[in-house]
């Protein structure tokens, strides 16, 4: 392991993507669960629970993309054309999801934007999962460009990862609502969380079984003893989180299911990292091959080191301001 600028930046990009996944994950999850809201008042509460923070959450996606452009321009230049369709569909879905927050309050027929909020959230999640699956499968490169076709991303495996992410986001959304609401809505979400938790763990399991067969290197990472012993920390942590998740639901805990669900994502992400390293774009582009020149990495790192802690501080402050249970009587701005 070489601890240099490119490695630090790979860590920072991974951090941005993970932060995006867990934060916008519960926003999108609420969108996915939106049709199950039993009344207009419940749906208002569901959406309002993230209205002050969703925009900041989504900005991590821009940092993931913009950061990749800045510090791994070759990876960005190869991955984006390879995932042309799912990325474009994701962007369009996010358009519908994003505008629904405000439009819903300005339209005569809110139903239209309820559907847009659900559809946008669902397809954004699906496309993100498909993109992940396509990346795990590996991307064909020739010279400095993508060399495959424009439907290479579509395989049973990528569809599977797509649905895994939809289910996982819905779980994050349900557990977030357990944290933020009371009464019937909370009871309803607690009920959903059982099934969603089981489904999330099940799909993670299935994806994990198939992943090592996508690339011999992955297989070696996970099944080549004794080197792969370190990798075993991932399933062990997953089992521990499963326990905290279900006992948390059982104990009527508001916070534990949410934190455990976040943990599922963090641990899965670490698992993907173990498979990928040292590749930026499997199967053949490494972090160091993809990295921009050091002068770019160093310049951008100065900003990241100063600004990311500040961003985390005021983001935490914004969450703190809007902490606690939702007040149903508080209207929109």
């Amino acid at each position: 392991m070489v601890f240099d600028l490119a490695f630090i930046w790979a860590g920072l990009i991974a951090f941005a993507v993970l932060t995006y996944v867990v934060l916008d994950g519960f926003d999108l999850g609420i969108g996915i669960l939106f049709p199950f809201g039993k009344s207009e008042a419940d749906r208002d509460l569901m959406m309002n629970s993230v209205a002050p923070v969703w925009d900041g959450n989504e900005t991590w996606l821009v940092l993931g993309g913009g950061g990749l452009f800045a510090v791994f321009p070759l990876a960005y230049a190869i991955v984006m054309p390879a995932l042309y369709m799912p990325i474009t569909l994701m962007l369009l879905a996010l358009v519908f999801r994003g505008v629904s927050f405000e439009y819903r309050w300005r339209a005569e027929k809110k139903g239209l934007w309820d559907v847009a909020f659900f559809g946008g959230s669902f397809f954004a999640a699906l496309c993100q999962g498909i993109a992940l699956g396509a990346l795990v499968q590996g991307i064909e490169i020739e010279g400095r460009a993508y060399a495959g076709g424009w439907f290479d991303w579509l395989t049973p495996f990528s569809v599977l990862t797509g649905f895994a992410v939809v289910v996982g986001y819905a779980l994050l959304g349900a557990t977030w609502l357990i944290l933020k609401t009371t009464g019937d809505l909370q009871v309803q979400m607690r009920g959903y969380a059982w099934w969603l938790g089981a489904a999330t763990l099940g799909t993670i399991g299935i994806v994990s079984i198939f992943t090592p067969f996508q690339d011999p290197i992955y297989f070696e990472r996970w099944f080549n003893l004794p080197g792969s012993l370190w990798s075993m920390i991932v399933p062990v942590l997953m089992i521990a989180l499963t326990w905290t998740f279900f006992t948390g639901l059982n104990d009527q805990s508001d916070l534990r299911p949410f934190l455990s669900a976040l943990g599922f994502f963090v641990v899965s992400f670490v698992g993907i990292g173990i498979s990928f390293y040292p590749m930026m774009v499997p199967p053949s582009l490494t972090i160091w091959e993809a990295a921009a020149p050091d002068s770019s990495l160093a310049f951008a790192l100065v900003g990241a080191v100063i600004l990311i802690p500040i961003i985390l501080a005021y983001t935490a402050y914004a969450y703190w301001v809007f902490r606690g249970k939702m007040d149903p009587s508080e209207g929109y701005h």
Partner: protein
Amino acid sequence: MLDGFSAEILARFQFAFTVSFHIIFPSFSIGLASYLAVLNGLWMRTRDETYLTLFNYWKKIFAVAFGMGVVSGIVMSYQFGTNWSVFSDKAGPVVGPLMAYEVLSAFFLEAGFLGIMLFGRERVGEKLHMFATAMVAFGTLMSATWILSVNSWMQTPAGYSVNEVGQFVPEDWWQIVFNPSFPYRLAHMVLAAFLTTALVVGAVGALHLLRDKADKEARRMFSMAMWMAVIVTPIQIFAGHEHGLNTLEHQPVKIMAMEGHYESHPEGWAPLYLFGIPNDEEQRLDYAIGIPGLGNLIFEKPLDYPVMGLDTIPDDEQPPVGIVFWSFRVMVGLGMLMLGLGLWSAWARWRGRLYDAPWLHRACIAMGPSGFVAVLAGWITTEVGRQPYTVYGLLRTSDSLAPVDAPAVAASLIAFIVVYFAVFGAGTFYLLRMMNKRAATPKLGLRDGPIRTAGITPAAQVDQDFIPGA
């Protein structure tokens, strides 16, 4: 449907389409964020409820416009990769970090404090709320700064070298960020955003003054907007002129296209063409009407200074002249109308009839969208004018393209067109409907109160017409 078009032309059209839609929203939200900060500051200082009412009114409008800007902006940050991957690989090491700084120093700031600005006045107290409002405004300006640095570097590259795989490698970040056209472009764009917002606010104020000249919020916003129009327009015209001189120095071919100068004038006395039909085939300006010599004077050159034309430039290094020539004239023409509007309002104010000048108010409503048109025309001038390059003089547009097949680009282009017209069309409709209501309307959301038919002013408000002092 789009058969027969090359992947390049489709990708260019898609970028032009998505970026044109996108720029509309920041042009408005940059100015409006600053206006909101001013309104909130004035409310805290004077405790005049009119300012608070105006703040709450424009805040709701800002939220909708800002949301549209965010979602259309995310598309841009990925489109460099999906459609212009060779450009991304080559120019990424230089422009990428600037965009990363934009995300880190601007987008997070806006998004992080937007929630507090919109929802948090009661929760955090007035002072922190003011701070959040100021941070949103500051964030929009930071965003403009970085992205204009990126665009300016692509127009006037500096501070780089080229490595063995053809990537632009940063050598001097100071020169990259403060490249030769950046200060001019930044000033021109930020002033344009302020002016665009002032024209919208002025039009909304004018609309409500026409209905009720005693509407005190309408009077206040109209007055503020007209001060902006009369003060900022001359500054903007000066900034635009300086920007033009800078372009003449660094991108003379663009100026030739803007001016319709196909032919050289080695003896000087170049005409300033007011009208003409550019004919790229024949390389001449048909039906030209020009004023001899003014083409020299406008660029602060002596009358006998030689002025070179497109006849000195190979055909494959020329931009499409017609688009550049006409979009430039649209922008300048609208600028002159804005100047006229500002002077008219100053005259009405001096006569004490600012709130009682129906024709001025009607003119303001007509000019309400003119800022957006001028911004688009200006961007078309500068972006089409730098063709056929993405990085000026160094990387051709045709060499910047991603290896994506034409059918895929055609499909995404159609999807963007359909979705953008539907979604942003609806958003524009909602914005106009909110603007159609008085600032003092307690709730602008239709679901927040009884539904009223849009466009009908409640009788009680019409009765206020005879309030003394109106």
